[in-house]
């Protein structure tokens, strides 16, 4: 599903370049549940951004479902993000002015789904994450766990094959975090490929594969258990 070959990412900072990722090669099969771990500054967020088509590698090849990502235009990348990838962020990143339902509908707006159909597709997803009775609530009226569940519903609304979660439980209490993780594991069992960036060893322990990064390199890539 995903083939990263010799991915390098450098940032120009004043006089010299800073290498954030160097020579990352990685294959991800459909249906995997992967944890990416590493200390701060190890490049795991940058790797996530590249996999999520939010950023381009400085060099190397990125193949997503047999399409070369590094050669795509901005608009094509936007379309890939829209249809193929779901994002779950540490800080939820819901749009504050919109209701839970409207938030879930946002990706459908950009794939040109008419507004009546959007509702029909967004509502069942909110039911599925247990927020059927909170659809008209604004994010500020929801708890952190509830907001993250809205974000998961939003990530799933276009039925993407890949879901990227960047510290999804980082801003949650342990009980809510556990609920969120359970939802992600259940989704993986239904066939969605999931990559989680996390500090939390307990979360990583529940993933099928753990990749450890340090100083922009993969130092360990192992199947769990």
């Amino acid at each position, binding site marked *: 599903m995903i083939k990263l070959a010799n991915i390098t990412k450098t940032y120009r900072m004043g006089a010299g370049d800073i290498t954030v990722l160097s020579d990352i090669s990685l294959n991800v099969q459909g249906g995997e549940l992967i944890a990416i771990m590493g200390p701060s500054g190890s490049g795991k967020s940058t790797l996530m951004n590249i996999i*999520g088509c*939010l950023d381009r590698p400085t060099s190397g090849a990125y193949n997503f479902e047999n399409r070369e990502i590094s050669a795509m235009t901005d608009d094509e990348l936007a379309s890939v993000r829209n249809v193929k990838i779901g994002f779950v962020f540490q800080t939820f990143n819901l*749009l504050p002015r*919109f209701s839970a339902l409207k938030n879930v509908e946002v990706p459908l*707006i*950009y794939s*040109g789904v008419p507004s009546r159909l959007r509702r029909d597709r967004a509502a069942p997803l909110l039911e599925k994450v247990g927020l059927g009775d909170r659809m008209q609530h604004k994010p500020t009226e929801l708890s952190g766990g509830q907001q993250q569940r809205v974000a998961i519903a939003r990530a799933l609304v276009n039925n993407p094959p890949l879901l990227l979660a960047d510290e999804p439980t980082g801003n949650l209490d342990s009980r809510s975090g556990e609920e969120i993780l359970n939802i992600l594991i259940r989704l993986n069992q239904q066939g969605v490929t999931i990559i989680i960036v996390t500090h939390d060893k307990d979360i990583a322990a529940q993933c099928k594969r753990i990749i450890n990064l340090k100083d922009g390199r993969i130092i360990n890539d192992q199947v769990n258990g």
Partner: protein
Amino acid sequence: MNFLETFRVAFEAILSNKVRSGLTMLGVIIGVMAVILLVSIGEGARVYITKELTGLGTNLLIITPGKTSTSGGFHPPSAGTVRKLTYDDSQALKRRAWLLTEAVPLVFGTGKIKYKNMGRDTMLIGTTPEFQSIRNLFVDTGSYVTQGDVDSKAKIIVLGTKVKEELFGTENPLGKVVTLSDARYRVVGVMRKRGTSLGMDLDDIVFIPVTSGQELFDTDGLFEIIASTPRSEDVDRAIAQIKDILIRRHAHREDFTIQSQGAMLSTMNTILGVLTAVLGGIAGISLVVGGIGIMNIMLVSVRERTREIGVRKALGARNSDIMAQFIIEAITLSGAGGIIGIVVGVGLALLIPVFVDVLPTSVSAWSIIMAFTFSVAVGVFFGVYPARKAALQDPIQALRYE
């Protein structure tokens, strides 16, 4: 992402910050209102003057003694006269200039008219019977100055309604004798009521035969000759004819000036057109200032919503979607401001003449269309920079933005 959806998103963004949006729109509202109001005042003045000048009678030519080098505009009646215009000149024109329907000799000035113990300073015109038709001023009761009166220098007088009311009240003035600068005149008629035109009260005038007028003002010349030609296409040829005849009578010298009403009208139109454009331009500046206000607020809005932009991009918004969202937001602000401004501006323009009767206004469709188009254009122009700024945000930076 379809247009309607973008529009709805923009509208929600505007409604979510009502006070700020309202204040931003106020700049455009005032600008559009000012454009419409000032242009309608300028247009009103133009329409009013055109109507009044045309109301004096169409295709008029005014011949005054003395040659002035400029063309068009107004001239004092006695500008360095070489040879006076005479009653005979007017008769010669009437006889020989076949393109003219009339050539009316005129003397005019002010005089004190007295009846019993009542007295009044009034405008006095000495003329011939044809004056009635040429200036659209007609007698109501009694009779007007006749050719016989002119030939015999008769001491008869026709009163404007205001003069009649002031001197006679409800009394029938016909046949009564009034004193005009120590000479006694018999009232033979009262004019039809006409009202004010171009600041001149047409009812506050008395008419006497031109020959009696010359005697009264102690002159053998005329102050002007008003000629008329039936068709506006003939104006230029009529002018040539008048020149031809008068130059021959004036020892081959062109010592008179001919103004056509059309030339006066177009001069006035030009002046008032420039005035309107200047007024509209000044108002336009305030519209531009309103546009800068929109740009300012849009820049703030883009900064505030950096994170939203990042989220939308992560969820699949293309740069053009983000750009459209912010431009449409700016256009909605300026367009809504434009519509409110039009309503207020047109409302005021219609209201002003009700309370201030010296200020006629005329709301023209073009000023509305122009003001609205301009306000939307202001939205586009001042919205593009902030929208572009929004669209080109790096999604990763935008997502990290606090």
